[in-house]
């Protein structure tokens, strides 16, 4: 997984959550630590889907709770789409 991709994801998520990118540590839990609501969670998912033209199955969404999990989950999908 490239550092660039991780940075890109961090910037995208920090923009949606309106928190500085440096505060978005890989293991900060979106719900517990960053206090985001379900609408923001959907917005993060939708932003990925739109940017990388992928569909994230609904049952997988609750498994993605921090930045590290976002990167780990989306990197292979992104490869598959050859973007």
């Amino acid at each position, binding site marked *: 997984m490239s550092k660039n991709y991780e940075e890109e994801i961090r910037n995208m998520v920090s923009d949606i959550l309106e928190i500085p990118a440096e505060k978005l540590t890989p293991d900060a839990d979106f719900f517990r630590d960053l206090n985001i609501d379900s609408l923001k969670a959907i917005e993060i998912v939708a932003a990925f889907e739109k940017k990388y*033209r992928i569909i994230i199955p609904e049952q997988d969404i609750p498994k993605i709770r921090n930045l590290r999990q976002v990167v780990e989950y989306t990197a292979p999908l992104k490869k598959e789409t050859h973007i």
Partner: protein
Amino acid sequence: MKERRIVVTGLGVIAPNGIGKDAFWHALKEGQSGIKRVKRFDTSQFKSKLAGEIDNFSPAVFLGHKGLRDLERTSRLLCSAAKLAIEDAGLSINHDNTDDIGVCTGTTLSSLWNFAQFDKETIQEGPLFTNVALFPGTVMNAASSQVSIRFNIQGFNTTISNGYSSSIDALKYAIDFIKLRRIKAVLVGGVESLSLVNYSGFYRLGFFAGINGEEVSCPFDKRRNGIILGEGAAVVIIEDEEYARSRNARIYAEVNGIGNCFEAYKMGKYHPGANGLKESIKEALRTSGIGPSDIDYISASANSVREQDRLETMAIKGVFGKYAYNIPVSSIKSMIGETFSAGGLFQISASIGSMYKGFIPPTINYEMTDEDCDLDYVANKSRLTRINNVLINNYGPGGSNAAFILSKGH
């Protein structure tokens, strides 16, 4: 049961010619217009180029940066005006009173642009790849709801969306809530935002000044040939008088009579008798407890449309008879443009300034008299005078009519 008296205690304005009540009142007193060339979008394909656009508005000044991302332009305008009004009223919203405070907003066109953006993405990107963040802003009640969310107001929240008279109708709805003792205070707002979509719509309907004549907002002037669109937000806080006094609030004015009437006619056409407006004014007078000769000033709905200004003049004369010639009448739309659903609230905000600062705002751009419009229009220069009772008219070709009397607080 004794009827409750209702008072105005706070005011927040984001207007094309002034942000904040003091700047707005100052601009009105000086006859300063907020109408200028549109910057937000390209007008090269239109014959009309002007609007009452707010181009120096920075919402972070009022709302901070956090959460702004979730607010589309209309919500930013209304929330900023609400913030100013809450501060102006010295109203502290907390656990004890939040259920007793409501929000009622007049707006009609505000979600058009957001809807258009969402729609465009759906078509261009495909239905599975739309920007979900745009969706909440596509509904008519978005801005009003954001006010309740942002300021943690737990009482009722309603959006009234019936065109030109929306914000006075929103005021009536709020007044009724207080009179029925269901709520103690209401943030009554009016908001519209300028966009290419509503600019295009009014232009294509042939409503704009500049299509057939000079592009100028000159209500009651013989040169008048259409509206210049405006945008902005105004919020007033009205309260049950007892509640206001219990918290030692400053009282700007008393909410007096109010009347509204829907006059079903042809779509987009004025009823030639202006009966709806006449009935609304009569109802406002009847419910006010004051006589026609107590009206010191009429804040007109005239928007530089040939029929509108003529019919409003006719309606005023129809109700007041010869006494109409003694009452100064002016239209602030000469300075801010036609702000549609927000218009009534801007007129109220201006009229509070009239009472508080003792002046009548002028009808600017008035040069050429018209035999159909022969009242005292306070041409071009404001007039210093004491104002105790203002009649505010609000109507348009959509059939909705409203009139409201604001009286000086005791």
